[in-house]
Every structure is written in structure tokens, then in C-alpha cells.
């Protein structure tokens, strides 16, 4: 059986890591791979909507803010997502369509209303920063659980919550800018609490999840903070009006639909 997990998926539920209230199988507690798979399973929703506030704080402390409306159909490797920016005025109407594939990088299109053009975003260098934020395009991808080797490093609390500390190393076939990542998964509802990503044993990025609340049966982090350790900058995403399993149709997730304001 093929699994994907979304270690740092911005567009899909990865940013909104959720967990069902179903009981946890006992064997998951000591097998790092199963912990990750369980975390993945618990965030599996048919669809999702939310409104996000994205704040980028540069190394000088200067902050820029953008807001967007988010909707996703499906989950994990087969999801389709549309993000439409709502403020500020100079980016209002800009929209992104992301079509995920379980076996390859996602397809992405961008709509720019000022020139009435859609463009395909060719994610050829996945280490590129995502539109000036501290996320790279690779950080936004859903990752196949099978493409990593996991090892349980130990237990460690994050903000007072007990967590499993798991190291994920990409397998040889997997191309990644990161040499390894360390994941903190909460023991209470299997949501991600923190991810640290390393480039050649040097910490490159840290993603922290907070304000975890249950929404429609999914444990959802409402605040995410990604810091780029090298650039000394920070990107914060705050979620509001989160809903799951809302009625959405396939035709709302096409390039044609992207053009509709």
C-alpha cells in the first residue's frame, strides 16, 4: 500500500495537520514509520477550506502581510488545491492551482489577473523559495512515506506536549535539498509539532506548529512558523475559518476555473 505524508505541505492539509479521534494502534507507538503513517492517516479529509494570513518577517524585522482563501479537494497524493490571494491590493486575484500526484512532483499553474494570463510554474529547482517566503517549493510537496528511512531518536516535549522525535532521511533514489529532517509528532493526537530540516548536517529550516484545535473531527494547527536559519527570516501562517469535508467539485480545480475570479 502506498502512503504519502505531508511533512511541510503548505497548500494541503500538511499545514493543518489533523488527527482523528480514533484509537491509536499499539504497535504504532514504537515504530517510527508507523507513527508517520498514522499521522498521515488522521489528516485524511475529503476537502478543506480556510482563510490564511501569511506574514513574512525579514532579517531586518520588516513584515509584509498577505491574505488568501484556500480550498482543497482530496488529500495526500491526489489532492487539488486553489489558493487565491485577497489582500493586499497589488496581489489581489492572483491564484495558484496545485495538482498533486502520488508519484511525481505536483503540477502548478498561476493566474495573474493584471495581464489576464495563466502560466504553468515549472518547478525545476525545488530548493527555490516560494514567492519570497521562507518555504521552498520542495517544502510544499507531499512526500511519499516510502521514500524515506525513519529512525526513532527518542521522546521530547514541544511546548509542553509529549512528542516522538523521529529522523527522516531521504532514500538514495529521492532527490532532495535536505540531507535529513527531524520530526516531532505529538503523542496525544499525532499532529506534527516541529520539523527541522538539515542541509549537510547544518540546520537550514525550522517549522513549528501551534494553536492546535479540533475542527470537524480533525486536529488542526492554526499557526505555523517557518524560519530560515541561514537567512534569519521568518514566515508565519495563521489559519482561520477552517472547515473540512465541504462540498467541492472537480471543475472548480481546473486552469479555466483559476481564471474565474
Amino acid at each position, binding site marked *: 500500500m502506498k502512503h504519502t505524508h505531508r511533512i511541510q505541505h503548505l497548500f494541503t492539509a500538511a499545514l493543518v495537520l489533523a488527527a482523528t479521534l480514533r484509537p491509536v494502534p499499539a504497535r504504532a507507538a514504537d515504530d517510527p514509520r508507523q507513527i508517520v503513517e498514522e499521522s498521515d492517516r488522521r489528516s485524511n479529509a475529503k476537502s478543506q477550506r480556510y482563510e490564511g494570513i501569511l506574514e513574512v518577517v525579514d532579517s531586518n524585522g520588516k513584515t*509584509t502581510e*498577505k491574505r488568501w482563501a484556500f480550498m482543497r479537494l482530496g488529500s495526500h497524493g491526489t489532492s487539488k488545491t486553489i489558493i487565491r*490571494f485577497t489582500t493586499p491590493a*497589488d*496581489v489581489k*486575484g*492572483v491564484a495558484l492551482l496545485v495538482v498533486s500526484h502520488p508519484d511525481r512532483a505536483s503540477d502548478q499553474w*498561476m493566474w*495573474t*489577473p*493584471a*495581464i489576464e*494570463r495563466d*502560466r*504553468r*510554474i*515549472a*518547478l*525545476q*529547482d525545488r530548493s*527555490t*523559495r516560494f*514567492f*519570497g517566503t521562507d518555504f521552498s517549493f520542495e517544502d510544499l510537496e507531499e512526500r511519499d512515506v516510502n521514500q524515506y528511512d525513519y529512525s526513532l531518536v527518542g521522546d521530547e516535549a514541544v511546548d509542553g506536549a509529549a512528542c516522538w522525535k523521529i529522523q527522516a532521511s531521504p532514500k538514495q533514489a529521492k532527490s532532495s535539498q535536505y540531507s535529513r529532517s527531524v520530526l516531532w509528532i505529538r503523542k496525544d493526537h499525532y499532529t506534527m509539532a516541529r520539523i527541522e530540516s538539515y542541509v549537510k548536517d547544518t540546520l537550514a529550516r525550522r517549522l513549528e506548529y501551534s494553536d492546535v484545535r479540533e475542527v470537524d473531527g480533525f486536529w488542526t494547527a492554526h499557526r505555523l512558523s517557518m524560519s530560515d536559519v541561514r537567512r534569519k527570516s521568518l514566515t508565519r501562517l495563521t489559519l482561520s475559518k477552517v472547515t473540512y469535508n465541504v462540498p467541492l467539485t472537480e471543475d472548480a480545480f481546473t486552469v479555466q476555473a483559476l481564471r474565474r475570479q
Partner: protein
Amino acid sequence: MLRLLVLVSWPHLRKHLLRTMLTTAGIVLGVAVFLGMRSANQSVLRGFTHMVASLAGKTELQVTAGEIGFGEDILEKVQSASTVGIAAPVIEAIVTPDIKGAGSLLIVGVDMTGDQSLRQYDLEGGDDTVEDPLVFLAQPDSVILAADFARRNNLAAGSQLPVGSVIGTKRLTVRGIMKPSGLASAFGGNIAVMDIYAAQKMFGRGRTFDRIDLAVKDGATVDACRQELRALLGAGFSVERPSTRGSQFESMLAAYSKTIEMSSAFALFIGMFIIYNAFAVAVRQRRKEIGVLRALGATRGQIQRMFLGESALLGVVGSGIGVLFGTLIAQAVAQWLGAFIADMFRVADQVEEVATNPWTLGAAFAIGVATSLLAAFVPAREAARVDPVHAMRKGEPEAATVLMSPVRVLSTLATVAVAGWCLGRGSNSAIFYLGYAATIAAAILLAAPLSWLLARIFRPVLTAFSPIEGALAADSLIRSPQRSSTAIAALMLSLALAVAFGGVGLANYRSIVEWTQTTLNPDLFVIPSQSLEARSIRFPDSMLKELTTVKGVTEVQPLRNARVVFRDVPTMLVAFDMKSIARTVKLRPVAGKVPDMYVEAAAGRGLLVSDSLAQLRQLSLGDTVELAAPYGTVQVPIVGIIVDYSDQQGSMMIDRSVFTKYWHDTSVDMFRVYVGPDVELSTVREDILQRYEKKRQVFVLTNGELKNYVIGIVSRWFALTSAQVAVAVIVAILGIVNALTVSVIDRRRELGILQAIGTIRPQVRHTIWIEAVTVGMIGLLLGCGFGAVNLYYMLEIVRRDVMGLHLEYVFPVSTVLMLAPAIILAAFVAALWPAESAIRGRLLDALEYE
């Protein structure tokens, strides 16, 4: 050897400082012109190569389809190739910002979401991207500017930059400043980067890209990637390393390069003549000294080496100074040439610094020294042959000058015969150039007898003008024709060069003016930007219908022109409605039947080529031409060869329907508009302008305005010809000053004798003046005569090897009329100081002089 140089040569060179300086000046000029012209040319090429390299970044291969570009669908095809790592589309446009003195600005449109993997956007403030990339993409007015351009024009982040676009002047917002290195150093720092999709809209490019830059996937080789893409895309696309653009650019500049090289070669050749003359006179003067040295045991070889050593010394000094002056000349010429080529081809980089290639510097220096040695070889050999007994006899006259020795007569006859034989067999290049060389040699050999003949013809005139001084001057020239023949030959060659350059320029100018009269006959021309060569901004074809409905308009012809790669060289392709053009324009056919050629071309069964292209690429009527396009290969015969000056490297003309079919490009560079009789042109013009006001940037030129524009461009090209004429004139003046100075100094003893037998000083002075002016006039006459022949050869060279143009023979009377007073004046001025020196010195010194 060194001792001889120190003990004998050095004091001699110091004693005759003026002559030494003038001789050295010949080398300085030759080397300076050679280096200056060559370095200027290299600087332009290097500038372009630098621009290509700066723009390329980490690009390993570039996918192009000539200047026309291709649809966006090609990008996905390229990205799907298994060996392609990163593929980023690019469009380029050269615009003139609406800022006084800003110059041209190269706008590079890139896809910022993927391009940073290929190019570093090193921004001021230490960031690798603009402050807000999403705003940059969302706002089509966003632009990143190079620091150099920003500073020169007082622009900073947030400033507005007004630039012409397809919809009129657009105010771009500066959202980042690039540090002045890498990409930002291309095009002399006059570079800006904007979003490619915004650039498409801004410049009316539709959904096309100019090229795709790509990096090969890790583990794949560049060759493998190139092969995969060639198979995937077909013959209509070129997949090459960025450096290939440099060689294509070089081939486009072939005409300029050849012209410049010809000037350099002539400058050196005439410089050699000046040196020869100086040494020939020196050997005559130093006969006694040579005799003493020989009597003291110096061998012939030592004497020969001593003179060659002197020439080498002068060569080293002259070449060194020439290199310095050459660098200065290169600076001035390179900037002019760079700006001109940037305007003409819209591709060249701005020349910020002159290429100081050590090899070129070394070559110029070595050529200077070698030329000096070569020029001194014959005089040095003559010096070695001096008989010491005769040389040391006091009062022994200089060896009797023989007007035409048997060897000289035979040589002259042989060269004339070779030149004549070659004349009828000019189809072979080697024979043609042999004939040209033989003609030059014959002209040089004939200079002495013709000078003598002309001096005899002038004698009655000079005597009538001034009975004593005129007769003395004429007799001096008749008695010793060899003495002044070198000066006259140098003058003749220089003037012949000036006449030839002037003639080619004039013929070219007249041909182009005639072409504009027959071809550019519409009443109005509607263009999208002020520059006709820009082609950065284009019209949509929908304007054709709109313009047709303008009251008073009877016919509208859309025209698209762009360079495509034909046999590895970018070649101008002009697409228009053949039927319509055949109806309105009388293109002068060189081969092919009118109107059949138009009918065939209109049906897509053939194409027309310009006679220049046919000549340069060896094309004939009926030859099949293959033009690989993005959407198939045009494979049609040449149905007509016509006179056309659309492009200096020649052009090909196809019907617009064929162009649209194979290039999928319906955009238009220019609309040719015909207006009905009795219709006020200004009214139609106003109607067109009003129709597009605030909707589209439109310029409407009247027939006269367009012709003036074209002639303005042509005139700029002829500025180079004028520079060549100027070089020839400077060489001529230097030659005559040198030769006359040397000649008068040489005759100090003779002039002393004249004074000793009672000639008064003013008479001697006037004699020298008259003789100098006569030498100038003879040189002028012979220069015009040989110039007339030289012009024939130069026109042939232009036709067969430079531009392929059949230019009519027109003798440049105006150039000669301009040159004549300058040359006569130069001859007169050249004689002033030597004349004073000759008459003011001690009589005894003069009589002792030798």
C-alpha cells in the same frame, strides 16, 4: 653590429631628428590604424560575447528559431526531455526609455518562478530576490534594474521608468536594483529584467518566446541533451551553446570587419612606403659614410645589418607609440561602432571598454617592426652594394638617376601584362586578387615615368607662372624623377584609396536612394516604435482590417521582417503579400520573369532573394532554398533575384501566407499604407493616430519621413567610409610631408650651390615651394587616375566578398574636389620649414652637406 648602431646610426638619427620623427610617424600611423580598427572591431565582438555570457548565467544550451521565436508549447516539450534539468524561457527587447540621455535599455523577460536556477539576480541589499516576488509577478509594471543604469538615471527602488510599449508609454516600477556584476553588467549595464508574460503583453509578442535557456540534468551530457532536443524539436530549431550566438553575430558583422581590415592593411602598406622612401634617401645621403665604413673593414653584411638595425629600432619605437595611439583610436571607433551596430542589429552590447587582447597588441607591434624591416630591406641592400672608392670621392655626384632601367621596364611591362590578363578572368577570386596586386605594383612602377612626363607637361605652365623659380622647380623634377617619385607614389596610393572608398560610399548611397524611390512608395508607414530596426514591439494582424477602413486609405500592406538562420548565418527574411506588392512596387529584377516570379511566390511555390544574398551565398535562379522553421521546412526554388537593400547581408522574401504557415506568427512590423488621390495625407495620418490614441502605440511616417530615416541610417554607415577616407588623407599628408622634408634636406648641397652661384634666397625659397606644390599636383593627378582603377577593384571586392552588392561605377568628384586643396596646401606647408632651413643655414655647411 651593436657598436655600429651606437657609433654610427645613433648620431645620424639624432642629427636628422625631424626626418627620424617623420619616418617613425609612418610606422606610428600604420600600427595605430591597424590596431585601432582591429581592436574596435574586436571590442564590439567581445562586448557581444560578454553580453551573451552575462545573460546566459548557468545556461548550457539555448533553443532558438531565429529572431522570430516560437510558441509557448515548445517550452513544455523541452521540459519533458529526459536530459533537460532546467529550462527557462526568455524574450528580449531593446527599448529607448523616455528619459533624456538614458540611451537604449535591454529588457530581458524571464519567468521568475524558475529562472533563478539559471541566473543570479544579485540584488542590492544582499537579497537573492526582489522584496516581494509575488507582487513582482502580479504587477506587470514590475522591473529590476541594473545598478549602473539606475544610478546614471537617478532611479531607485520604487521609481518609475517610462518606456515605450505596444500600448504607448508605460511607466514601469523599479522593484529591485541588481548589483553591477554578472547579468547586470550585460549591455553596458543598461539592462532590466521583467516578468516574461508581462513583457509578452507589453511588446505585443503574443504567446511566444524568443528562446529557451536550459541546463542539462545531472548525469546527462550537453551533447546528449542537444541530440535529444534536436530529435524532439526538429530542424526548425537550433539547439546550441550560448557561445554560438557570438559566431553568428560575427558572421553578421562580416561586411564591417572586412571593410575595417582593408583600411588597416592599406594604412600599413602606405606606412611601409613612407619608411622605404626615408631609408632610400638616407642611403643616398650617407654614401660617403658607408664608403668610410667599408674602407675601415666593414663588410657588406654589416652595412646591410646596420641599416636594418636602424629600421628595427625605428620600428620598435614607432610600433610602441603606434600601440598607444591605436588604443586611443580604438576607444573612439569602438564606441561609435558599438552604438551603430546596436542600433542596426539591435543585438550588440554597448562597448564600455576596448578589447586589449595581448595577441592583437603583440601582432600590431610585430607587424609594425616587420613592416619597418621590410620597407628598409631594399635600401639596406643598396647601401651594402655601395662602392667605397666612388662613395669617398669628394664632390662625386650621386649616382645618376635612371628613369627606367631595363629591369624596371621589364618589371613594369610584366605587371601590366599580368594585371591585364587577370582582368578578363575575374570570376576566379585568386586571379582577381592577383590582378589587383599586379595593378598596384604597376601603378607604383609607373609612378616615376609618369611623374617625369607630368613634370615636363607642367614645365611651360610653371615657367609662365614664374620664369626662374618655375623653371628651376620643373627641371629639378625632370632631372631627378626618382627622388620625388616615392613621395608621389605614396601620395598616389593614399589618394587612390581615398577615391576608392569615396566612390564605393557614393555608389552605395546612390543605389540605396534609388531603391528607396522605387520600393518605399507607399504614402504612409505605420510602425509600432520610433526605430524601424527595433522589431522589439510588434502589431497584431487585426490592425490590417482596422486600417483598411480608415477613410481615404486604398490599400494596406502588412510587412514582417526578422532574421532567420539560413546556412548557419542569420539572414533577413521579409514576409509580405506578394500580389499586393507586385501591384504597387516595381522591384528591379536581376534574374527571373516579372510578373511570373510574384505569382509563383504568392502561391508559395517560390521565394525571391536579393542580388546581394545571391552573390554572397552563391545562389542562382532555380536553386532550391531550404528554410527550417518551427512548424516545418520551407523548401522552394528561387523564382526571382531582385535588387533589395533591406539588409546589408542580403534578404529573402516570401509570401506572408507561407510565413504564417511555417512560423505561426501573424504579427506585423510595419503597415504600408496607400492613400487615394485627392486625399489629404495629413488627414489620414491624424485619423490613424486618433483611432489608436490611448489604445496602442502607433507612429505614422510619411513617405518623405521614412526615406529620410533610411537615408539617415545609411549616412551613419558612411561615416565609417568617411573615417576611412580621413585615414587615407592623413596618410597622404603625412607621406607628402615626410617625402618633401626628406627631399629638401637631401638637396641641401644642391640648394647651396644655387646660392653660391648667385641665386638669391627668396628665389630658392620659391623654387622649393613651387616644386613641392608641383609634387602635390602630380600626386593628385596620378592619385585620381589610379583611384579610378582602384575604385573598379574596390567595387568588385564589395560585390564578391563584402556585401554582394552590384554597385554602379561613380567617380567621386566631390571627394576629389574636397581633397585637392588639402593636398596642395599640405605640400606647400610641408615645404615651408625645409625651405627656410635650407636657405638660412651656413652656405659652407650646405656645400659640405652629404
